[in-house]
């Protein structure tokens, strides 16, 4: 009975399919329809351009604080591209492109960041939870949702996003542990963008990878190149299939990089070097994906140009729509709605008092 090594059930793998120049590893290349590949590309580009537009709107004071996604397009879209409509998306606050893919209107994104609660409202039938601001707390919801799916005999999946920083929160730990114990159809996507505001990945936790945290829950875990849409897709597809088949949760670490500010209230110059950012520019997820699509003859420079102009128009229309919506949102009493299904007397009294202040 000597001191002996314990063999663990799972290994932690690293998955990369497109290299940094966009060359594909054809052994690992996932089987994706051409149309879907182009949709994915379009969504990545739209995500990037919309982000840029929002930054301008924020800088000119038209919207408030928001969290840009620049650099993380593959990491979030590669993952949600594996979901079906009836599956559930449980976002943090940095999955704007994923939310749009899943049916959230750009208008609403703008509305929310412009300080209108209405922007976060979710249309009936859309299975996206609203943005969750308290870091990591939403992970548990995805586990509960997954459990409910299972109990109801549905073959659905809940996919939850959070950042590298979020993995330090107790709630993310409890979520992964519950998912393991109850074998829920939950896919955990950690967008490791190397920073949690000013805290670098290496200071967030001492484990060599974030993926290996899956071992603590007896759950398969994998690290994927998060700037490689194919790798993210392949990892997520495996996880979604596993969940849908009733084989439980998976944890995916997408290694990516936050190219922009944490939020528009942040100044990254205080804590990171330009060189680091430059280095990551070379691994741009959109450039790589475009190279791949071109190599596959699915895309050309002309097509990209046409697409860019189409996207520009789409965003312009969304901005217009948003401005119109803002002008229409004149009712100020919304804060009293939906506190409860039925308004209790004390709230009705308060609403009345509030209405009096409006008219006086």
């Amino acid at each position: 009975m000597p001191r002996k090594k314990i063999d663990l059930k799972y290994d932690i793998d690293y998955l990369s399919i497109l290299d940094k120049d966009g060359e594909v590893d054809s052994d690992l290349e996932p089987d994706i329809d051409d149309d879907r590949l182009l949709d994915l590309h379009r969504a990545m580009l739209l995500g990037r351009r919309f982000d840029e537009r929002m930054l301008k709107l924020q800088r000119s004071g038209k919207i408030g604080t928001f969290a840009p996604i620049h650099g993380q397009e593959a990491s979030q879209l590669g993952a949600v591209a594996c979901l079906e409509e009836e599956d559930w998306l449980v976002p943090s606050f940095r999955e704007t492109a994923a939310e749009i893919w899943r049916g959230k209107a750009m208008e609403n994104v703008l509305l929310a960041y412009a300080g209108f609660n209405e922007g976060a409202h979710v249309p009936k039938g859309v299975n996206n939870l609203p943005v969750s601001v308290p870091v990591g707390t939403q992970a548990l919801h995805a586990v509960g949702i997954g459990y409910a799916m299972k109990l109801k005999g549905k073959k659905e999946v809940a996919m939850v996003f959070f950042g590298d920083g979020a993995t330090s929160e107790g709630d993310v730990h409890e979520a992964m542990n519950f998912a393991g114990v109850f074998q829920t159809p939950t896919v955990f996507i950690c967008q490791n963008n190397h920073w949690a505001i000013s805290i670098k990945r290496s200071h967030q936790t001492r484990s060599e990878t974030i993926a290996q945290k899956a071992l603590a829950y007896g759950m398969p875990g994998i690290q994927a190149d998060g700037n490689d849409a194919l790798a993210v897709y392949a990892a997520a597809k495996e996880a979604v299939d596993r969940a849908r088949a009733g084989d439980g949760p998976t944890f995916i670490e997408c290694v990516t990089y936050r190219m922009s500010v944490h939020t528009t209230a942040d100044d990254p110059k205080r804590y990171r070097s330009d060189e680091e950012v430059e280095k990551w520019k070379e691994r741009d997820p959109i450039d790589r994906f475009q190279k791949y699509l071109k190599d596959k003859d699915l895309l050309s420079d002309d097509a990209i140009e046409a697409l860019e102009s189409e996207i520009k128009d789409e965003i312009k229309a969304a901005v217009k729509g948003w401005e119109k919506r803002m002008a229409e949102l004149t009712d100020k009493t919304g804060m009293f709605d939906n506190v409860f299904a039925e308004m209790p007397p004390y709230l009705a009294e308060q609403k009345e008092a509030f209405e009096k202040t409006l008219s006086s």
Partner: protein
Amino acid sequence: MAKLTMVQAINLALHQEMKKDEDVVVLGEDVGVDGGVFRVTDGLIDEFGEERVMDTPLAESGIAGFAIGMALYGLKPVAEIQFSGFAYIAFHQMEAHAARLRGRSGGRFTVPMVLRMPYGGGVRALEHHSESREAYWAHTPGLKTVIPSTPRNARSLLVSAIRDPDPVIFYEPKASYRAFKEEVPDEEETFPIGESQIVREGDDLTVIAYGAMMRPTLEAADKLKEDDGIDCEVIDLLTISPLDDAKFTKSAQKTGRILVVHEAPRSFGPGAEIITRLVEKSFVYLEAPVRRVTGYDVVIPLYQREFDYLPGVDRIVSAARETLDFKA
């Protein structure tokens, strides 16, 4: 109709609701095989299986957040926190999400869950097993906080809480779990959340209490009647929030003299809100300062001293007398 303890009555509510509605699920630490450390969930796992009666890992935030997720999907989870003293670990989930998701999503998502837990002193328990901090929940917009006082109202209120479309914090007075029995009808019974109950009528003094404090309060009312010929009107709040201020402000207009009793710490406690509503709505009728008989602003001591902390009949009686003696 059978005479049940509160534990049995709550168990009955759970049984019947789970039978009636397959979306009702029960979860928590030791609620399954063990039937709950107080046996409140006894037998449920045998009848409904471990898929609907879930023993969870030891993690309160996990329990609350997991239940929120289930509720978002359409289930009606009844989650147990083993003792209210451990519920603060789950507080942020209830504040940040359970209470807000209806509003945040514009009504698309709702959280029809119940977070049940035993609270309060008087059962010779360890530290953190005797707290009464309902004010934390009551101060949180989007949550309802309910505290029954007898087997029958525990049963009917829990049924209402389970059917309520919004999150309800359900505090169970553990000191009353087995202390007495009451007739509880077999057939379904509900009681509206947000409504208090006048459990004894009187013209001299209004006493407002709830939960485990109802017993010393009613005993004190008997004593005041017997010894002093004083007629107390006793109101059992039943719901802490939304606070039914209509009944007690009306009663105050009749008696002009009011006492509030709770075992929660005094300062910033529920009594303060009740007194403030009285000031706001019945000011001119008040003939004496509204007094509160409460726990002190300390941690409730271990069992040798817990009844020094807890309001008892004597403290209630003497506060009542002082209130009645008050002359402006």
